């Protein structure tokens, strides 16, 4: 899932301090799971903003809250079509995709981000999310035992480990596992060390962000 972290309330207040009618817009998907931008967080932020305005003496301030199933799909974003014009601004606490899609759809209303979008990752335990995928556009997990060196090796090495690997840890951080140590351990466990013997050729990074903004176009599902 897309992992995000809450922005400090101070930062959000700075964006919206001159607004009088605000909509805090949550998202029911990834940001709900990582407890940054779901219905619960929308309620907390809206309540904090209402009290902030009231405490400043802005008596006619209005802060509403709404949580959509997703903010990255037209159909769900259309649900606020009838009410969007009631607001001076929207604080979207979805990921960066949701913020941008909301801004595109409601062109004349300022949309401010309420979270910092961090990475594609997994929930290791409650309150701990770690990166697993960098969406490079050309998956090599079949050859690396299901562990991604692009996302998990600090150097993105395709033929690792490097000399900075020590006792299974990475030189950049003693708590960080060396991705290539994990790959080797896993290849041994599945009896596929033959894959480790093969050298990776130069990866085509044009499908990564290096090739500019990307798109996936599927004619088989397009009408």
């Amino acid at each position, binding site marked *: 899932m897309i992992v995000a972290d809450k922005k*400090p*309330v101070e930062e959000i207040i700075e964006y919206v301090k001159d607004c009088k009618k605000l909509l805090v817009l949550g998202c029911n998907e990834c940001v709900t799971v990582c407890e940054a931008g779901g219905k619960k967080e929308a309620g907390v932020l809206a*309540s904090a903003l209402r*009290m902030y305005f*009231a*405490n400043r*003496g802005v*008596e006619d301030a209005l802060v509403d809250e709404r949580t959509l199933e997703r903010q990255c799909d037209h159909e769900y974003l259309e649900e606020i079509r009838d009410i969007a014009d009631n607001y001076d601004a929207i604080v979207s606490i979805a990921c960066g995709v949701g913020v941008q899609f909301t801004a595109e759809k409601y062109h004349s209303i300022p949309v401010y981000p309420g979270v910092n979008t961090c990475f594609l990752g997994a929930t290791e335990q409650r309150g701990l999310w770690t990166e697993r995928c960098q969406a490079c556009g050309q998956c090599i997990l079949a050859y690396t035992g299901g562990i991604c060196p692009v996302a998990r090796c600090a150097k993105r090495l395709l033929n690792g480990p490097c000399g900075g690997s020590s006792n299974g840890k990475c030189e950049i951080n003693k708590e960080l596992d060396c991705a290539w140590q994990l790959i080797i351990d896993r290849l041994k466990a599945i009896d596929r060390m033959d894959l480790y013997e093969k050298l990776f050729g130069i990866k085509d990074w044009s499908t990564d962000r290096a090739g500019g903004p990307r798109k996936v176009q599927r004619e088989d599902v397009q009408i």
Partner: protein
Amino acid sequence: MLRAFEKGADGVSIIGCMEGDCHYKTGNLRARKRVEQVQKILNTIGLEGERAQMYNLSSSDGPLFVKYAQEMDERIRNLGPNPMKKKKKNAA
């Protein structure tokens, strides 16, 4: 908790079981984290974070409950009323 402050509560005590004794194992620890979160938010928006307090008690701790209640009462009296109450009155 925030709703209570929004509606004008001068203070909110959250009372959980003793740490380690929660029927839901970690419910009281989670509650403490939430109280800390609320304190931070209250401080940020210009209200006093200490208006929210977490206490741990067992059901047989009557005298301790009284002590905590008095402590909270004193704290709130020193802080004065929740400013939200005044704003709400003005708005009405």
